[in-house]
């Protein structure tokens, strides 16, 4: 469309007239006559057919819309909401008022023959400006009135904020009074000065009295506004507080990713969907949850790409699918196993597809040897066979798994395993270059002389029972004796596990794909999933054929629908197996595309440095969120089962008699997972004690722990000394959105009353072995709940202090995502209105008050920090074979960094905290910047930043580059990351070249001079530079796909073998029977918690249904669910989607009020009835809060809860495994998931008269 000018004529086709030929015409002769004689209205120019009259002028009425459209300026910003959109928007401003927003369309093109990224956005983002002036906006600082009254009284009387705070906390009466008022209104306006003073005093008091690790911060997903996240996190970490994780806590982390890839998650940008020639969407409702990217899926169909949707309901994406596989909720693993069965049997056994064989030999652990262990007359899988097992006693030998060279039949040690990663002798050998070696996939057919020719009966666990308990499969494998040890390959194990029979092997096998009696055939899965065996066979064949023909361009978009189950990791491994077996991983257009929650913080190193404050103090305290809330909200007190309820009888009994809390404590004790608080004493005092005793702190701590004089706080989480005391939530709605077990949070962590919790505490015989148990469960652990937000949420309503935040159109910040390869900017369209401040300014304010108070109350202290063995560090070699060794059980003194966590003493300069916060500290010069094991030194960058931003003149940061504004922090982040600073990318690849002995720097060469600045990002979204921080390459303008660098450059994955893993030999994985991909059904809540069975009805409670919380079309988590536009386009409040069959069972009609009740809580909401829902399952879309249109319940007379009032945390013990190769802790990389999909609830139609 070209522009055009207005002409002054208008056409008015009025109704009168008759056509010239008489046949056609309008109305009748009377009208014709009137028109011809010009009696209708004013004089006009009448057309020949009498259909139109043309008039000139009269266009003044147009002015209204021209005025409406006019505006003064357009500013680029984006939405810092927790979604993967990262869409750039135009914000329109008129007379200093934000009017509306539309999408930017200026993304750099991705090439002439593919669709572009423009425009990116969704209806939710388009409705954002409503918040700016909405009645739900937080305009001023607020505090709970009852608390303020006591504080002011004490403050005047005592003359000191910290003393005043301490006095209130020491008085149980006063404490209980404001705890019980939490969430019940009574917020009053306070000044910023007073709010900041109280917040600072609470922090100072907590550090002095209990220790800094009783302070916690929660703010998720840094990529959605890196500076706003880092500003607060930096404050928490400088104090020595703990940041709790979000990715695993949200159950968005696919634990299978660290398990299989040794990587947190790395996925293709959505532009790479265009490269796929076969595209499955599995548990991912792309149009709803990836709205700005969905067009790639719609468009790639026009290239002839087949689309398959796997979803239990007729979801939005099914509209686009060529085939729909309506897989029953939570049974996806069964379908994936059956598809794997088809692929293995047809493409790797019946015929040996060369493309697949070549791939799995090079890039997977399938050829590696595994020891078999005799148990009760048969065999079970043992550990990987390593060089150490063959007598090699050189460095790293226990981490060098071996395989058989197909040319010679000899056992060889290939390059690239963990044993080459950190050792001196491994320099130049950490690569996947096999030389002339051709790895043998099976020992079947090995000669007797070489130790082969035998078979063994193998026992494998199966869980496809109605309640999910383990039973045993008996299948044979070929074996070979190596050094007296019976071995076979992982490939041999896989065929046994999947039931793919080869002639000559003993055991019980399916007779064919149509044999439903044995796992894991297509016929076997049919009654479990409801998907026909023939469809499963057909899709599996098409999928593999396509991969073969296209060179691995078969892709699976994977989503929360399959990830957020208790056994989501097992499901994922079964699906990943399909991709890896077909050579589709590490390809453009192929592989997994896991899009759940994570937004890729592309300039990750710069952000991590700012957020962790690692330029001043290392290591930062980082906590696995799920375990934190599981322990501190006392959900563990209500577990209905023991950890070994989920075990296999083929394990070693590691979890026998243990409660899940016991497993957590063991993990913490062995240095596998972190826990905060650390000790039952102040960690500052422990440092002093060690110094006084003149013993190095690590040794001191080990001795004290061994003697029992010092205890791990995790063993007594309900001891008041071990409670978390101060929690700050910003950019977060913990209590209205992500808190699985919301009512437990309210009752135990916050101590408010009138909660909806109905659960019964754990029965005495099921209680923990190693954890202190008091009869009373604490209510009200937190001294201070502080939140910063721009709108009222459940979190702000429950907070003691609420600070008014600037919105996303009122601040400077950065945004990036995994869905597109750009970084771009938030910019202020207006200044923060009323008394709101940016997160950056809010924490800057609090930090300064904190430092002032710290001068008198804290001073400079030393702090003992305990952090577990971490992934991508030499610490991940602490436990060879992943073999458990609990010093507590053995009765030995633990060795820090070996048999217990690393212990580090750091200095906390509390009075100088604000000065440190606002300058770039010296450790970046001396220790460098490390991401995923690659260290670079930003000496050039520090000089550049000093010149650009100026240096501080005095104080702790004297002479160091300033980061006292948000813009400076933006530029510091960009400057310290390889993705946005070409020099550091090249430096990083040089490091990698030394270790791998492979050419790497060509991936970023030519970018050395390239520095992406904040100003660049404000001008236009900027494509990033290929960097060793990530596993894919954008070099040459290609689309980003994960692991392409591994595949093309033979760079190892960060795993034990350096390859992608099908087999996991960690003790705690073994304990759950999950060494290999396996199907595990949804948890049986009837067996574990005595809930009714799905489909049953109970008098007074209604119908029992499976309770799923998929993401909503009308909100991004809780954001926008209160937005008037979104509410007007939907049902105007919380709803439950139900099938007509189920609605009939409870006698309810569309839009009727219903109540859902289970042991965890109560919801009151309205019904949406649609036959797109399968019978027996309801959807209550994620993050429907209690703030909008939620009445009082009939169940208990209290306000109905949020979607997470019906859920609770269920910790999978194997997620606590650590200390070993890719199964080692890293922040947001490994940890128990806060899964919530296995839940059930009762639902019934309630009285239609509701009270608020």
């Amino acid at each position, binding site marked *: 469309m*070209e522009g055009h000018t207005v002409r002054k004529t208008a056409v*008015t086709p009025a109704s009168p007239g008759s056509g010239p030929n008489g046949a056609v015409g309008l109305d009748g002769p009377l009208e014709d006559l009137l028109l011809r004689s010009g009696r209708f209205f004013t004089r006009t120019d009448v057309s020949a057919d009498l259909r139109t009259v043309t008039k000139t002028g009269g266009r003044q*009425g147009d002015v209204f819309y021209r005025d409406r459209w006019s505006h003064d300026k357009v500013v680029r910003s984006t939405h810092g909401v927790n979604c993967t959109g990262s869409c750039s928007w135009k914000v329109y401003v008129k007379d200093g008022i934000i009017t509306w927003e539309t999408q930017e369309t200026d993304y750099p093109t991705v090439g002439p023959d593919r669709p572009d990224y423009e425009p990116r956005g969704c209806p939710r983002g388009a409705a954002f400006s409503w918040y700016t002036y909405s009645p739900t906006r937080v305009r001023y600082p607020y505090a709970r009135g009852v608390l303020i009254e006591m504080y002011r009284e004490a403050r005047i009387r005592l003359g000191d904020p910290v003393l005043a705070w301490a006095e209130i906390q020491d008085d149980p009466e006063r404490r209980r009074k404001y705890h019980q008022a939490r969430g019940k209104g009574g917020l009053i306006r306070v000044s910023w000065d007073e709010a900041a003073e109280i917040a600072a005093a609470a922090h100072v008091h907590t550090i002095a009295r209990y220790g800094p690790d009783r302070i916690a911060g929660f703010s998720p997903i840094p990529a959605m506004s890196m500076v706003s996240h880092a500003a607060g996190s930096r404050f928490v970490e400088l104090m020595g507080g703990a940041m709790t994780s979000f990715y695993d806590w949200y159950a968005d982390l696919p634990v299978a990713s660290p398990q299989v890839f040794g990587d947190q998650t790395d996925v293709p940008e959505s532009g790479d969907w265009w490269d796929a020639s076969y595209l499955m969407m599995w548990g991912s409702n792309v149009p709803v949850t990836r709205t700005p990217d969905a067009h790639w899926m719609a468009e790639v169909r026009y*290239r002839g790409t087949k689309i398959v949707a796997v979803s239990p309901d007729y979801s939005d994406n099914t509209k686009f699918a060529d085939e729909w596989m309506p897989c029953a909720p939570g049974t996806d693993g069964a379908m994936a196993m059956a598809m794997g069965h088809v692929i293995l049997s047809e493409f790797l056994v019946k015929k040996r597809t060369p493309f697949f064989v070549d791939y799995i030999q090079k890039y997977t652990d399938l050829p590696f040897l595994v020891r078999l262990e005799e148990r009760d007359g048969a065999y079970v899988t043992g550990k990987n066979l390593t060089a150490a097992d063959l007598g090699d006693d050189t460095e790293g030998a226990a981490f060098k798994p071996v395989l058989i060279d197909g040319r010679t039949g000899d056992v060889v040690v290939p390059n690239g395993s963990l044993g080459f990663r950190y050792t001196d002798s491994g320099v130049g050998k950490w690569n996947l270059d096999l030389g002339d070696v051709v790895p043998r996939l099976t020992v079947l057919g090995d000669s007797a002389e070489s130790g082969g020719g035998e078979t063994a009966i193998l026992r494998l666990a199966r869980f496809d029972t109605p309640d999910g308990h383990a039973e045993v499969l008996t299948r044979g494998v070929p074996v070979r004796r190596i050094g007296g040890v019976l071995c076979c390959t992982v490939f041999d194990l896989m065929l046994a596990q999947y039931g793919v029979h080869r002639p000559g092997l003993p055991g019980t096998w399916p007779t064919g794909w149509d044999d439903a009696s044995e796992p894991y055939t297509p016929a076997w899965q049919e009654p479990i999933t409801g998907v026909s065996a023939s469809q499963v066979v057909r899709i599996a064949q098409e999928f593999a054929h396509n991969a073969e023909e296209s060179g691995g361009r078969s892709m699976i978009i994977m989503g929360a629908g399959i990830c957020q189950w208790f056994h989501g990791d097992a499901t994922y491994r079964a699906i990943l197996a399909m991709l890896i077996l077909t050579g589709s991983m590490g390809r453009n257009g192929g592989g997994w595309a896991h899009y759940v929650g994570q937004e890729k913080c592309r300039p990750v190193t710069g952000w991590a440095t700012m957020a962790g404050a690692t330029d001043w103090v290392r290591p930062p305290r980082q906590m696995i969120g799920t375990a934190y809330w599981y322990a501190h909200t006392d959900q563990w007190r209500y577990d209905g089962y023991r950890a070994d309820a989920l075990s296999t009888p083929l394990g070693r009994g590691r979890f026998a008699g243990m409660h899940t809390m016991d497993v957590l404590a063991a993990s913490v004790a062995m240095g596998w997972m972190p826990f905060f608080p650390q000790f039952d004493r102040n960690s500052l005092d422990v440092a002093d004690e060690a110094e006084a005793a003149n013993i190095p702190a690590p040794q001191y701590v080990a001795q004290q722990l061994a003697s029992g004089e010092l205890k791990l706080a995790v063993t007594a989480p309900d001891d008041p000394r071990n409670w978390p005391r101060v929690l700050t939530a910003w950019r977060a709605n913990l209590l209205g959105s992500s808190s699985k077990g919301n009512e437990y949070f309210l009752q135990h962590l916050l101590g408010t009353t009138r909660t909806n919790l109905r659960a019964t505490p754990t029965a005495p015989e099921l209680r923990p072995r190693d954890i202190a148990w008091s009869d009373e469960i604490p209510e009200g652990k937190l001294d201070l709940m502080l939140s910063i937000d721009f709108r009222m949420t459940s979190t702000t309503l429950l907070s003691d202090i609420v600070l008014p935040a600037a919105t996303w159109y009122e601040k400077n910040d950065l945004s990036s995502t995994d869905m597109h390869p750009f970084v771009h900017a938030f910019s202020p369209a207006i200044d923060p209105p009323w008394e709101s401040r940016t997160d950056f300014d809010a924490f800057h304010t609090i930090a300064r008050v904190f430092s002032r108070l710290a001068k008198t109350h804290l001073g400079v202290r030393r702090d003992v920090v305990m952090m577990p063995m971490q992934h991508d560090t030499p610490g991940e070699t602490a436990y060879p074979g992943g073999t458990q060794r609990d010093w507590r059980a053995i009765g030995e003194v633990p060795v820090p960094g070996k048999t217990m966590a690393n212990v580090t003493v750091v200095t906390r300069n509390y009075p100088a905290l604000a000065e440190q916060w606002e300058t770039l500290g010296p450790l970046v010069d001396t220790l460098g910047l490390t991401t995923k094991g690659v260290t670079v030194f930003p000496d050039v960058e520090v000089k550049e930043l000093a010149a650009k931003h100026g240096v501080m003149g005095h104080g702790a940061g004297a002479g160091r580059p300033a980061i006292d504004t948000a813009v400076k922090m933006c530029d510091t982040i960009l400057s310290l990351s390889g993705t946005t600073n070409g020099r550091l990318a090249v430096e990083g690849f040089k490091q990698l070249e030394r270790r791998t002995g492979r050419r790497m720097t060509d991936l970023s060469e030519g970018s050395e001079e390239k520095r992406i600045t904040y100003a660049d990002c404000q001008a236009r979204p900027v494509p990033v530079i290929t960097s060793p921080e990530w596993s894919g390459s954008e070099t040459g303008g290609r689309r980003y796909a994960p692991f392409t660098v591994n595949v093309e450059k033979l760079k190892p994955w960060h795993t034990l073998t350096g390859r992608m893993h099908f087999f996991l030999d960690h003790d705690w994985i073994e304990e759950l029977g999950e060494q290999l991909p396996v199907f595990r059904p949804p948890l049986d809540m009837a067996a574990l918690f005595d809930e009714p069975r799905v489909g049953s009805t109970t008098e007074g409670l209604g119908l029992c249904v499976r309770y799923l919380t998929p993401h909503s079309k009308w909100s991004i988590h809780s954001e926008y669910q209160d937005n008037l536009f979104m*509410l007007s386009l939907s049902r105007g409040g919380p709803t439950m989607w139900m099938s007509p069959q189920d609605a009939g069972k409870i006698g309810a009609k569309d839009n009727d009020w219903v109540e859902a009740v289970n042991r965890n809580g109560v919801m009151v909401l309205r019904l949406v009835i649609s036959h797109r829902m399968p019978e027996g399952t309801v959807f209550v879309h994620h993050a429907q809060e209690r703030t909008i249109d939620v009445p009082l319940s009939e169940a208990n007379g209290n306000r109905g809860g949020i979607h997470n009032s019906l859920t609770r945390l269920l910790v999978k013990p194997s997620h606590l495994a650590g200390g070993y190769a890719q199964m080692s802790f890293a922040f947001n990389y490994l940890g128990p998931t806060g899964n919530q999909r296995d839940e059930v609830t009762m639902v019934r139609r309630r009285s239609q008269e509701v009270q608020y």
Partner: protein
Amino acid sequence: MRVMAQLSMVMNLDKCIGCHTCSVTCKQAWTNRPGVEYAWFNNVETRPGQGYPRTYEDQDKWEGGWIRDKRGRLRLRAGGRIRKLATIFSNPKMPSIDDYYEPWTYDYENLTNAPLGEQMPVAPPRSLITGQPMKVQWSANWDDNLGGSTEILAGDPILAKVSAEVKLELEQTFMFYLPRICEHCLNPSCVASCPSGAMYKRSEDGIVLVDQDKCKGWRMCVSGCPYKKVYFNHRTGKAEKCTFCYPRVEVGLPTVCSETCVGRLRYIGLILYDADRVLDAASTENEADLYEAQLAVMLDPNDPEVIAGARESGISDEWMDAARRSPVYALAKVYRIALPLHPEYRTMPMVWYVPPLSPVVDAISRDGHDGEDPQNLFGAIDALRIPIEYLAGLFSAGDTAIVTNVLKKLAAMRAYMRDINLGRDPRSEIPASVGMGEELMYEMYRLLAIAKYEARY
């Protein structure tokens, strides 16, 4: 021949994800103000479903648009000008607010201002019409994503007309989305209904507007429009409607709804048409022939006679250039895959639609056929989960052959492109089977799939 220019739009429903971004950006820009809270110049309907306002397509009830009388003359269905004048004070065919929805807000202030009480504060709904507390019973998009439901489906006027049995079992669920703006018709019945002469069609680009100064609030336009795309502002007492974003298009920007469409499914283009033939075409006897009649009114911008006529009408060379590059012309007239919405209303609507194709392979694969084989694809179109009759009820006055032909072209394009995608030799017989050449099919593919910004507008 009287050559006139018309700004028009095509929406490719096959790509629509039903996200409503268009609705929200439009609302934010134009109607987030008192008096038009309930008005959505752009809305998106889930079909099957009742639409917005409810059942607006039931012209037996609402009497919008034109009918052709026994003598072959067009009449406003609600009666001619004289009857309109006679009944000006009583307009029984006006949708009530309940047919749209009663707009509401919430007592949001409670969240911040609630005094200390026994329960957590909440914001219950409150009517923006009466100011009273209310239970939300209907919204701008109440039947969103239902794919119909037993209670709501009964009110779908299209389903009531088609003979197809739509089974409500889960496996038979189907749904698609229908975004709608004003049709900016060539033969607009709203304009013809206006007793005040306040409604007009701009001569330079055909945009249909309400003169805010002249509108007297009779609301005959509201009832006269069969698409119910004119709204009454109860605050100002005047009619308002989609303006095709003229303050934007006049300076070379696409409409808000188009530019913000994240499905990238909207195309804006200029169409030249013969104004002298509009009445003839709109009076075509057989409803099923109205589609072809309307196509025939569209003029070829490369035809020397048309170029001369355009020059005579004062259409500039730049506009002629735009007409030649018009994606709307290509989709509607060259590839013939875009169809008008309800041609049987005889208003000659100018917002056209590519009907949705998917899911197609599903239907055949269930029968055990190869879903990639183009011949099988064609066979499957008759077994689509979205019944052809339903689509024909929307886009071709019930003629299923017209819709089938479009879907076959889309299916053929996918089959043809798959060979290219996988590096096989392309098969010219595939485009030939739907009457297209390879080049034309590839061009169509680029316009539908690559769809660059410059190509869409």
